[in-house]
C-alpha cells in the first residue's frame, strides 16, 4: 500500500509544479527574446521598472486569487483602489507630517471596509459575488467621483517621504517590491499550509459540502473578501506613492487586468484550485508582456491585440497541463 502510494505521489507533485513551471517558461522565453533584441531590457533600471509595475498588480492578484479560489470574484478592486488612493492622497496632502505607516493602515482600512460590504452582501444577502462586486464597482467609483469631483492631488502637494517611498530601497530592493513579495508569499503560505486556507479551497471546490462539513463558511468568506478589499486598499496607497498624481479615475478598468493575472496564473475561475504564487507570476507575466511589447517597438496598435492573444495562449497552456494531469490519473487508476 505504502509502496504504491509514494511513487504516484512524486509524480503528482511533480506535475503540479509543472503548472507554475509553464508560466515561468513563458516568462523566460519572453524575457530572453526581448533581451536578445534589446539588451537594455535587462538593465537595472528596466528590471526595477518592471518589478515596480508588477508590485501593485501582484498585491491585488493575491487577494483576488483567494476570492476566486472560493468560487467567487471581486470585480470592485479597481474602484476600491481608486477610493483608497484618493483618500490616502488627500489625507497626506492635508497632513504632510503623517508617517507612511499611517497611510498604509488607512489604505488597508478603507479597502477592508469595502471588503466587509462585499462579503456581507454575498454571504448574508445571498447575492452572487459577480453581481455584488459589479454593483459595488459602480458604487465605489461613484462615491470617489462625487467626493473628488474634478480635484486631482498632484505630486507637488504630496509630502516628499510619501513619494520617495515608492523608489526607496532596502538592500537594493524597492519597498514596493518588498511589500508585494511579502504579501504574495504570506497569502500563499496561508492558503497552502494553514487550516483556514484549505477550508477556503474546500469552499470553492464544493460550497454545499463545505457547509455540511461544518466549515465556518461565513467567517471564511467574509475574511476572503476583506483580504481582497484590504489588499486593493493597500494597492491604492502604493499607487498613490508611485504615480504621485491621483484623481477619481485612478485604477479604472484595473479589475479586468487583475482577473486576467489570476486566470493566467492558473487559478480556476470555478474555484477550488490554483495557487497564489501562480497569480503573482500571472501578474508578472502580464507586466512583462506589456513592457516587452513597448521595448520591442511593436506598433502601438498591435500591442493590445498581442496581449489578448497571449492571455488566451496562457489559458490554453494551463488547460493542457490540467488535461495531462487528469489523463495520468485515469491511467494510473485503470486496471486494464
Amino acid at each position: 500500500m505504502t509502496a504504491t502510494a509514494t511513487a504516484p505521489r512524486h509524480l503528482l507533485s511533480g506535475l503540479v509544479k509543472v503548472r507554475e513551471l509553464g508560466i515561468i517558461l513563458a516568462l523566460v522565453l519572453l524575457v530572453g527574446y526581448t533581451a536578445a533584441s534589446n539588451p537594455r531590457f535587462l538593465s537595472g533600471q528596466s528590471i526595477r521598472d518592471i518589478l515596480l509595475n508588477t508590485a501593485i498588480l501582484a498585491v491585488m492578484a493575491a487577494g483576488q486569487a483567494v476570492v476566486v479560489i472560493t468560487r467567487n470574484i471581486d470585480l470592485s478592486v479597481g474602484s476600491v483602489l481608486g477610493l483608497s488612493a484618493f483618500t490616502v492622497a488627500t489625507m497626506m496632502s492635508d497632513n504632510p507630517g503623517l508617517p507612511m505607516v499611517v497611510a498604509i493602515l488607512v489604505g488597508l482600512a478603507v479597502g477592508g471596509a469595502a471588503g466587509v460590504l462585499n462579503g456581507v452582501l454575498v454571504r448574508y444577502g445571498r447575492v452572487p459575488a459577480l453581481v455584488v462586486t459589479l454593483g459595488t464597482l459602480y458604487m465605489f467609483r461613484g462615491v470617489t467621483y462625487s467626493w473628488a469631483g474634478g480635484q486631482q492631488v498632484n505630486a507637488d502637494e504630496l509630502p516628499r517621504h510619501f513619494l520617495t517611498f515608492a523608489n526607496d530601497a532596502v538592500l537594493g530592493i524597492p519597498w514596493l517590491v518588498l511589500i508585494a513579495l511579502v504579501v504574495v508569499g504570506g497569502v500563499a503560505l496561508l492558503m497552502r499550509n494553514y487550516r483556514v486556507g484549505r477550508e477556503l479551497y474546500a469552499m470553492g471546490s464544493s460550497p454545499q459540502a463545505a457547509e455540511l462539513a461544518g466549515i465556518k463558511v461565513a467567517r471564511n468568506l467574509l475574511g476572503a473578501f476583506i483580504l481582497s478589499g484590504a489588499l486593493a486598499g493597500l494597492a491604492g496607497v502604493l499607487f498613490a506613492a508611485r504615480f504621485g498624481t491621483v484623481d477619481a479615475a485612478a485604477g479604472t478598468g484595473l479589475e479586468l487586468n487583475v482577473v486576467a493575472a489570476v486566470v493566467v496564473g492558473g487559478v480556476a475561475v470555478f474555484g477550488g484550485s490554483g495557487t497564489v504564487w501562480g497569480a503573482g507570476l500571472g501578474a508578472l507575466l502580464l507586466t512583462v508582456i506589456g513592457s516587452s511589447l513597448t521595448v520591442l517597438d511593436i506598433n502601438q496598435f498591435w500591442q493590445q491585440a498581442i496581449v489578448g492573444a497571449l492571455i488566451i495562449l496562457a489559458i490554453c497552456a494551463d488547460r493542457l497541463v490540467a488535461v495531462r494531469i487528469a489523463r495520468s490519473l485515469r491511467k494510473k487508476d485503470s486496471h486494464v
Partner: protein
Amino acid sequence: MTATPGPSRPGPAKLEVRDVTKSFGAVAAVQGVSFPLYAGEAHALVGENGAGKSTIVKMLAGVHRPDTGTLAVDGAEVEFAGPADAKAAGIAVIYQEPTLFPDLSVAENIAMGNQPLTRLRQIDRKAMHANAARLFTRLGVHIDPDRPARGLSIADQQLVEIAKALSSEARVLIMDEPTAALSGVEVDRLFAVTRALRDEGAAIMFISHRFEEITALCQRVTIMRDGRHVCTEPVADLSVDDMIRRMVGRDLSALFPKQDTEIGETVLEVEGLGREGVFRDVSFTVRAGEIVALAGLVGAGRSEVMQAVFGVDRYDTGSVRFLGKPLKAGSPRAAMAAGMALVPEDRRQQGLVMDLSIERNVTLPRSRALARLGLLFGAAERREATSWTSQLQTKLGRLSDPVGTLSGGNQQKVVLAKWLATDPKLLIVDEPTRGIDVGTKAEVHRLMSSLAARGLAVVMVSSELPEVLGMADRIIVLREGHVAARLTRAEATEENVMYAAMGQQVTT
C-alpha cells in the same frame, strides 16, 4: 450474516430526537417523531422513499433546524446552529449523497476540519496522508490518498465518505444509505468496521432499504411512514414482513415478479468494444423481450460500457449495431432517435437537472416530440409529466417544484419516468433501484418485467445480486473491464456470479 440480539437498554440515550417536526413549505416532511440512540447499539431507521429519514438525519447533523421539538445529547437539550455544532457534539454523518471536495486530495477530504498540525500550526501533510492510508487499510480498499476526489466512482466516493466519518472518532455515527452504491464485499467490510465501533461504545444510526443489512447490523429499528413515527422496537422482535407491513401500511406481494417472455430478434449488438484504460473487448447482444444484466464488482466498468454504447462517452475500438444498423458513436441524440434510453447511475449529476421543475425534467428528452410547429407549451408537458409520475407513484407536491426537493427515491422515479416516456426499444438501466424503497422497487421490477414482456429489450446494470438473479434472463459478468463470464438464468447462482466477478474459477 448473523443478527446480534438486541439488548433492552437502560440508561440515558446518547442522542435523542424528541417530538421533532419539520416542514418545507407545504410539505410536512417530519411530524412529531421521537426515538433514542443508545451507546453501543446500532439503530436502523426505515421507511418508504420520502418518509422523512434523510430529513431527520439533516436535523441531527445541524443542517436543518427542527420547526418544533428538540434534540438531546446525553439527556441535555441542545440546539445546533449549524453542522459545526453537531460535529462538536461528536456526531459524524454520512449523507445520502456524497459531499466531497473534488479539487482536494482524498487525504485532505478525509482530514478536513481536523487536520493534524505541526508545531507552527501548519498542516502536517505526512500525518494526514498516513492517517488516510490507515483508514483505507482498515476498510480494505485501494484508493490513493493523494489523488484528487474528482473522478472517483460513486462507490469510491461513498468509501471516502465512510473513511471521513470514521476518522473523526465520533461518539455518534449516522449513516444515510451508505451501502446503496456498494457491492457485497465492501458492505461486509463496512459492517465489520461498524460493529467494532459499536462495540467500542459508539451509537450508530443506519438507514437502508435492504432488510438483510438491517437484520445483520442493527439491534433496534424505528419505522416511519409519511413523516410520522410508527414504532421503535428491537430488531429481533420483528420479522422482515412485519417491518415492511408497518412501513408501507399494507402487505406486499412477491418482490421480484419476473414474467416469462417471448424472446424476439436481436436489438443490440456490441462487438469488441474497448476504451483505453477503462474496458476492452466487450461483446454481447440483447434481444427484444430480454433482460440482460451486467454484473460485477464496483469499478468493473459496467457503467462505462453502457455509457459508451449510449454515446455519452466515446469508445476507441469496436462497434455498436442497433436494430441491424450501425449506431453513430458518441451521440446520445442518435441513440435516442434510434430508440435507446439510458437511466444513469448518478441521478444528481447525470440523471436530473435539480433546479428545474419535475415536469421539465420528465419531458426533457421528449421536448422535441411534444412541440407543435416547433413551439412548446406548458400544457403538453404537464399532461405527460402527470401521467408518468402517477404511474410510478411518485410522491411529490407540485409538478412545478424543483426536482431537487424530492426525496432520493422519488428522484429516482422521476429519472425512470423521464426515460420511459421516450417509449424506447432498448432500455438501459444503471442501478435502477438504488435508494428505492421495497414497495417501489417491486413496482420498478414489475414495470421492467412487463415492459420486457411487451417486447422491450432491457440492459440492467446492478450491484445488487438478488435483483440480478431475480430479474435477468442472461447475466454478463464484467471484471476489470472485460467479460469474465456469461450465464443464463438457469446457470446463475449467487456463488457463480460472485466468483466470476472476483476472478475465481467458476464452478458449475
